[in-house]
């Protein structure tokens, strides 16, 4: 991390390894901890047992194995996918809008998803399961509609520069969808609790279905964002200069925003509106590892996933048998941690 190092900004092996380790620790903890207590060691052995060509006996019974493979693992994987997607989308937005406060909900994804989910819930369609559950589908549609509207309105920004125009139209669209959603929610008070849970976010899964639904979106969107990360560095010199360097700024912004918004829409449709991850994870990575998006984004994928899995453990265990909404946990634990990083990073300079 020494500032005098002369090579170009690049991902160092041990940085990636520490991200991988964070994912592994969070994952094993997520499998081991819960109402039915399983040992860390037994869980690790059970995981190793499933590797091809390896056979070891974890000593876990059939029921415990089912808890790991059918209940806890899907939830851990879902946490990894959602956390990675929200955090990376936040980082990408911060780069493409050159705004440290940009989060993945900037262009109205959250408001649109909340609106879509609320409409599905109040219409009484909310108790389906997995692929047939209309709530995530409706949330996904609402999120995409809101972002598309934001983009269309922002593109006609007149005299404003394109970034400001897009951000402001996001504010307008989000306020509008939130207003409609709140209105509907207040009129249908018997479903208010269900809507409330969606808004605060939770990683409740119905097994592997949600994971299978989300994985392709997350995979493609993360891949696209990671591939344009070098260009996000070039965008740091501003639209005009980046253009004179040969960057097609409009195309670059469109590609990034589409990937980040689509991935975010898919994530929130499954997990609800988990806040704060998209801000604190990329900023923490930036403070610890440097300012180049070439470094920030890949590490954000790993640490974002690990962070959300850890937050989910707290959400499940803190007030058993009830669950705290995970959005409350991410902010409650994330905010003090972020302040700590902010202070130590400043002192190190």
């Amino acid at each position, binding site marked *: 991390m020494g*500032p*005098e*190092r*002369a*090579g*170009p*900004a690049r991902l160092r092996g041990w940085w990636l390894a520490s991200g991988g380790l964070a994912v592994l620790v969070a994952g094993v903890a997520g499998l081991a901890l819960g109402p039915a207590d399983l040992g860390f060691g037994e869980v690790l052995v059970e995981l190793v047992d499933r590797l091809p060509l390896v056979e070891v006996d974890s000593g876990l019974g059939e029921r415990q194995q089912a808890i790991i493979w059918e209940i806890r693992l899907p939830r851990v994987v879902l946490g990894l996918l959602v956390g990675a997607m929200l955090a990376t989308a936040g980082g990408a937005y911060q780069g493409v809008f050159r705004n440290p406060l940009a989060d993945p909900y900037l262009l109205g994804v959250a408001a649109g998803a909340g609106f879509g989910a609320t409409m599905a819930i109040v219409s009484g369609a909310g108790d389906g399961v997995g692929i047939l559950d209309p709530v995530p589908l409706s949330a996904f549609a609402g999120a995409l509609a809101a972002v598309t509207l934001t983009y269309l309105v922002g593109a006609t920004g007149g*005299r404003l520069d394109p970034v400001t125009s897009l951000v402001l139209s996001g504010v307008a669209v989000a306020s509008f969808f939130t207003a409609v959603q709140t209105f509907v929610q207040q009129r249908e008070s018997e479903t208010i609790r269900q809507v409330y849970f969606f808004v605060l976010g939770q990683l409740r899964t119905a097994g592997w279905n949600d994971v299978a639904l989300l994985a392709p979106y997350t995979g493609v969107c993360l891949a696209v964002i990671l*591939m*344009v990360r*070098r*260009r996000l*560095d*070039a965008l*740091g*010199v*501003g639209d*005009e*200069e*980046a*253009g*004179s*360097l*040969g*960057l*097609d700024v409009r*195309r670059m912004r469109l590609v990034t925003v589409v990937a980040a918004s689509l991935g975010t829409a898919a994530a929130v449709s499954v997990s609800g509106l988990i806040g704060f991850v998209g801000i604190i994870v990329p900023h923490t990575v930036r403070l610890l590892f*440097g*300012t*180049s998006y*070439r470094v920030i984004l890949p590490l954000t994928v790993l640490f974002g996933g690990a962070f959300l899995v850890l937050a989910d453990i707290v959400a499940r265990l803190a007030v058993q048998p009830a669950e705290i909404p995970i959005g409350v946990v991410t902010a409650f634990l994330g905010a003090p941690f972020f302040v700590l990083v902010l202070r130590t990073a400043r002192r190190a300079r």
Partner: protein
Amino acid sequence: MTTIACRSVIVSFDGVEVLRGVDLDVPSGGWVTVVGPNGAGKSTLLRAVVGGLVAGGEILIDGCPVQSLSRREVARLVALVPQEPVIPPGMRVLDYVLLGRTAHLGFFEAEGRGDMEVATSALSDLDAGHLAGRTVDTLSGGERQRVVIARALAQESPVLLLDEPTTALDIGHQQDVLDLVDGLRSERNLTVLATMHDLTLAGQYAELLVMLDAGLVAESGSAAEVLTEEAVSRHYGVRVRIIDDESGPIVVPVRRTT
């Protein structure tokens, strides 16, 4: 053999014409400097060459109208050193110079070893190799200017546009930078189009001076032809004395006595 030809170039912002039909030729390997009072359209002219915001007339680079070229194609022909470059906070010098390679990379491509070599040699050509590991926002004005020029060199474009390259520098560094650019011009066979405020320096380095006033070419020619007491006082609204020196005309402002 790259040349720039401006033919009756018109650029307007919000309906106001900033350039009102400018004709200008930059011969291959030459150094042309555009001078003129604030608001005459100097920077706009350079921005028009790289950005294609031309509303009328045309700008030809190597005979191709700039509007028909993509950003990437333009960037491979013309590199701009902006007047006030935006410095991303915390970015290190080598990474900043590597941004100059953008036009040579595919949309999803990362820099390779060849790009690294180009960036390092650009830095060492500007005697800035020792700065590679520093962050750009901690450099002095003179160091920073050399790093920005290194980024432009890393573009490997045959034409270099310099927008007031000396404005932020003391007179020693002004001379350093212009000497460096002149050396690079012959070494790398570059064509230079610059804008400058300091008329004396402008005359000493350029082969051809073009004076813009209110969006039109007012004078053009050698330094001795353009930098006359009459022309400078008319277009800048200032009283000056021109002293003839073997290095070129020296323009000295003289306080108005009432």
